């Protein structure tokens, strides 16, 4: 496993753009195309925004660690906080029309993360919440894997 980045950010929303840029740079260094790199940056930002909102309940005095590594042609990004345990929201995204009708704003972040990453895992380990995003490197994309296993 090759570590690409290990960096801590304060649990303050003003650092979200910096989080996004760091994750995007990691993706670019793994040769993801520009648009995919931007989406990976966004996915990591959404995860950190979740930590700030749910694990730290908006408190800016915590920290969120981004730990990125490549292993076996898969980019793995762990977003780690030491805040409260929080469950994955159960009100699954049911379309923008439904959100609009409820004048509701939430539920989109996790939907985006799941749409961008190949897999998303939520782990509680000791006092840490870990959100683990996995994305296969572009040289061996998901389609290639599927065709190889058929």
């Amino acid at each position, binding site marked *: 496993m090759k570590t690409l980045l290990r960096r801590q950010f304060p649990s303050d*929303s*003003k650092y*979200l*753009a910096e989080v*996004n840029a760091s994750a995007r740079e990691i993706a670019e260094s793994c040769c993801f195309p520009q*648009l995919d790199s*931007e*989406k990976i*940056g*966004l996915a990591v*930002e*959404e995860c950190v*925004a979740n930590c*700030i*909102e749910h694990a730290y309940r908006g408190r800016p005095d915590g920290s969120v660690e981004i730990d990125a590594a490549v292993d076996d042609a898969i980019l793995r990004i762990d977003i780690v906080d030491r805040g409260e345990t929080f469950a994955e929201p159960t009100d699954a*995204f049911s*379309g*923008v*029309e439904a*959100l*609009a*009708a409820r*004048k*509701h*704003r*939430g539920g*989109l*972040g996790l*939907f*985006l993360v799941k*749409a*961008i990453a190949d897999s998303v895992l939520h782990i509680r380990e000791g006092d840490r919440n870990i959100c683990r995003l996995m994305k296969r490197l572009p040289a061996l994309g998901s389609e290639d894997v599927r065709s190889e296993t058929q």
Partner: protein
Amino acid sequence: MSQLQVETGAQGVVSIIRTTGLLNAHTVPQFDQTLRGLLDAGALKLVVNAERLTYVASAGLGALIGSIDEIRERGGDLRICGLNETVKSIFEMVGLPHLFQIFVTEEEAIQSFSA
């Protein structure tokens, strides 16, 4: 420099919100405040020009989605223009083109209210 700059303008009865920077959980209150100010002042026809928006996160999408029903209940609409490839792709991922009319240029978005 602030992460989001929001300017407002008007052409006839159409109010325009021009955004520069990024729209995420940190900057969305600024966008909300501008949109709310226009709605409270009675604006019904709104265009959000995203030409200089580098990216939009779920909080920004939520601000648009969360306000559109109120605007339409008042007989108005909010239309969007100038999406870059990244923002357009995110909009498409969540199905926003089903909810909003999206135009390439600000002029087209403004003109659409006359159609």
